[in-house]
């Protein structure tokens, strides 16, 4: 644990020193994962399904605000839909505009959740989005996360039914097909329900003044996700792989605990309950200290000696050697007359 805390401290220090470079790099990586994910999922427009295009877009996103990544991602989706058919692109644009007008304008700060949701679905850990939103943001982030779910299922629909949508069917029929595929997709509604429930519950539990509230919130969030998805599978016309749902929830739980360690990191064993009062109130305060470790600083001292000094030192160091070379007379202390010797020495004086 101490090693982990030291690592956290080191990472914090490193980020503090180099945040000017780290933030754009992280944004670049997120953008590249997102755009690659969109291309891998749809990829109908071959000109855009190109690593250079993705790199250019990611570089742009690394220096510009996060909301631009969302806009570029949505534009990429519309462009791929255009390769399937004009009506599909029109529907995608209409859907995105509706989401923006009706929902996303109230949660502009949480729009990252919308782009992270399809990414999390791609990585097979969708539950991390509602858990993360509940831990780091508020219930309003459910709007963005749910919009992300809609976008993900729309992309899935276009990917699965591309051959039908490319066929020479009536525009109205295509529109009907798309709308049916989205509105009558019970799996999507179930996921939206699970996401909303998890975000609200995680947020409420996280805010409670109990020990280990974050950990309880993460575990409860994962359990609620599993229960909702499994119950939905039983009562609705939804085919959910139970093992996949459980693995996803467990994976999200681990990621959530990792998030808790890096974001919160408190030591409940050293918490203190304080009580004091002023003229108007009596205060019951619980103070929980943060887990911190003092980093051991290793200082390396280099002692360099000037060349002349070194030779001098060598000479000095040799002297005792020379002295050692002189054979010493062995004195027999029993026959040695100290008084006589002392008198002799006094005579010289």
């Amino acid at each position, binding site marked *: 644990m101490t090693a982990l805390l030291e690592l956290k401290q080191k990472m914090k220090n490193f980020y503090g020193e180099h945040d000017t470079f780290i933030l754009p790099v992280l944004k670049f990586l997120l953008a590249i994962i997102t755009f690659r994910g969109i291309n891998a999922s749809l990829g109908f427009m071959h000109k855009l399904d190109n690593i250079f295009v993705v790199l250019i877009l990611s570089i742009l996103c690394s220096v510009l605000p996060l909301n631009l990544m969302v806009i570029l991602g949505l534009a990429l989706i519309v462009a791929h839909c255009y390769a399937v058919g004009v009506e599909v692109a029109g529907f995608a644009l*209409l859907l995105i*505009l*509706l989401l923006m*007008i*009706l929902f996303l*304008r109230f949660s502009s700060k949480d729009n990252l959740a919308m782009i992270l949701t399809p990414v999390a679905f791609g990585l097979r850990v969708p539950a991390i989005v509602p858990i993360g939103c509940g831990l780091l943001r508020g219930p309003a982030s459910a709007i963005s996360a749910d919009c992300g779910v809609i976008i993900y299922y729309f992309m899935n629909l276009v990917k699965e039914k591309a051959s039908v949508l490319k066929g020479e069917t009536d525009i*109205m029929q295509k529109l*009907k097909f798309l709308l049916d595929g989205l509105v009558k997709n019970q799996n999507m509604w179930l996921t939206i329900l699970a996401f909303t429930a998890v975000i609200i519950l995680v947020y409420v539990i996280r805010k409670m003044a109990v020990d280990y509230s974050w950990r309880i919130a993460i575990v409860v969030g994962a359990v609620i996700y599993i229960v909702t998805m499994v119950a939905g599978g039983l009562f609705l016309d939804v085919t959910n792989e139970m093992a996949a749902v459980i693995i996803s929830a467990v994976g999200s739980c681990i990621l959530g605990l990792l998030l808790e360690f890096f974001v919160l990191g408190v030591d409940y064993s050293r918490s203190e309950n304080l009580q004091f009062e002023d003229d108007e109130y009596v205060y019951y305060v619980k103070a929980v200290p943060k887990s911190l470790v003092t980093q051991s600083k290793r200082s390396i001292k280099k002692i360099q000696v000037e060349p002349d000094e070194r030779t001098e030192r060598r000479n000095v160091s040799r002297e005792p050697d020379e002295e050692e070379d002189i054979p010493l007379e062995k004195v027999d202390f029993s026959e040695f007359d100290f008084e006589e010797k002392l008198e002799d020495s006094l005579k010289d004086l």
Partner: protein
Amino acid sequence: MLDLERIRQMTKLASYEAGEGKTYLPISKYYRSDFIGLALIKNFFLVSIGYCMILAVIAGYNAEYLLNNAHKLNVVTTVIAVVAGYVVLLVLYSIVTYIYTSVKYSRAKKSIQQYYIDLNKLKKMYDREEKRNIKKNTVRRKRA
């Protein structure tokens, strides 16, 4: 000569302007009623556009039925339903917008208070320096 206290104050203000202030400073220029009124007007247009889109999608979805049964449709009932839907949606979104903008405005006001206190401190520092300079100049003139 560099005034360290003033530099500290300016850094504090600049860091606020670059961070939280980016969102809250433009809001502080409005009166509460103006800010909420403007948001409601914007909301009206956005809801109108959104509702038209929803109507277009519903009409497109039911195009076949509408074409086949156009003569059987009760126009008055349909129009009333459409208008009622629009009014309900507009009222609902207006309430949400009102609450959202009110909260946003009060947050901005609270956040900006410390900024103005710091700004006043900086102004006083400048005033003090100006007075000092005026005094110095008058003394020099007298000597001259």
